[in-house]
């Protein structure tokens, strides 16, 4: 078993249990800043944990949600998220940018948004994407958790076939994993930013995916995203394309960031991390830390903008 306290290898992929232990370890190492919070459970009754980073000054503080691992086979997403957790605590009090952000806002980080799928990728099928919920009347299992949000739900850009990799589910928020996040964010009521981490393709996108209608804040989101992509590229030259989901890739309905945007969370972005297809979902572990380090620069650019443009 992996020991706590600096023995977690951030440059390797880990089991769900190991990630959860490390989350607990981070919270234990920095109890005045971080707490591990259970926000719900998965279909197969696994806990869903977030790390809450809060300097605690003031109540109902504006907040940022960092979502990772919603598609279970995109392992660099979960790996980047846990690295980011350690980065936040390491830099707080030392790096002016993150210290300033946390003085004003809280950050909630969900490293494994699809725990059942993630465990399944470790134990049965490395290329599993969806949840592991049962579909009555169908031999096929799971719903695409990024087509299950209540934003253009069941519109073009998802499938009504349970055997499809983009099956939207019987209704919006049918997946308990999605509902847990929705309920938490709605109850909190003061989120200003929602960022979802995926792989692969090296894209930084903003709403909308379910419609070709331009989001009313699209110009600002585009400008922020371009600066974030530039910051990301400044580390190792990794190039990202920027644009709305609809114009950059394809129509995709029921996605997380579309829901966030339509529910008042203006700064909604999705990253598709490394690479561009050489390894795809099987990104070698020696690229985890470089990916996380460059992504951090992009995340910080976005979070700084949010801090300076609270609404």
């Amino acid at each position, binding site marked *: 078993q992996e020991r706590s306290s600096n023995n977690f290898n951030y440059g390797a992929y*880990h089991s769900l249990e190991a990630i959860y232990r490390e989350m607990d370890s981070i919270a234990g190492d920095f109890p005045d800043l971080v707490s591990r919070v259970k926000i719900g459970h998965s279909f197969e009754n696994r806990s869903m944990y977030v790390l809450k980073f809060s300097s605690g000054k003031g109540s109902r503080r504006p907040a940022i949600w960092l979502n990772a691992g919603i598609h279970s086979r995109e392992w660099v997403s979960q790996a980047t998220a846990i690295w980011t957790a350690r980065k936040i605590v390491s830099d707080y009090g030392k790096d002016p940018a993150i210290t300033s952000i946390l003085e004003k806002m809280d950050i909630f980080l969900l490293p494994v948004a699809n725990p059942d799928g993630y465990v399944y990728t470790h134990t049965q099928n490395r*290329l599993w994407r969806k949840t592991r919920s049962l579909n009555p009347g169908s031999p096929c299992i799971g719903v695409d958790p990024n087509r299950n949000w209540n934003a253009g739900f069941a519109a073009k850009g998802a499938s009504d076939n349970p055997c499809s*990799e983009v099956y939207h589910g019987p209704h919006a928020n049918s997946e308990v994993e999605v509902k847990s996040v929705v309920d938490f964010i709605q109850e909190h009521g003061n989120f200003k930013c929602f960022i979802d981490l995926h792989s692969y393709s090296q894209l930084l996108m903003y709403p909308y995916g379910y419609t070709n209608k331009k989001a009313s804040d699209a110009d600002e989101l585009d400008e922020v995203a371009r600066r974030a992509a530039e910051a990301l590229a400044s580390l190792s030259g990794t190039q990202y394309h920027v644009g709305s989901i609809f114009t*950059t890739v394809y129509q995709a309905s029921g996605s997380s960031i579309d829901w966030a945007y339509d529910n008042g969370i203006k700064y909604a972005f999705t990253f598709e991390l490394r690479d561009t*297809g050489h390894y795809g979902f099987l990104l070698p*572990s020696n690229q985890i830390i470089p990916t996380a380090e460059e992504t951090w620069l992009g995340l910080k650019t976005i979070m700084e903008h949010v801090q300076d443009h609270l609404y």
Partner: protein
Amino acid sequence: REKFFGDQVFRINVRNGDEISKLNQLVNSDNFKLNVWKSSSTFGLPVDVLVPSVSLQPVKFFLKSQGLEYSVIIEDLQALLDKEDEEMQHNEG
């Protein structure tokens, strides 16, 4: 754990609506058991598809007969999976 011996990942380039239709026909066919890694409806952006070993020849035939350009971006999927697994086990050790 499921094995993917002989499976490959193809990158298929689509240049117009007609080619997207042909590709959709291929992908939606139950016969080939394809798994889409990266989809696209934007011209000029490729589509990445996992092709099981048993479907390699018929899929290649279909793509050539329809004039669809493609390349093999992952030739030996199982080798990558084995390496990843080996690294994880080494890390645990």
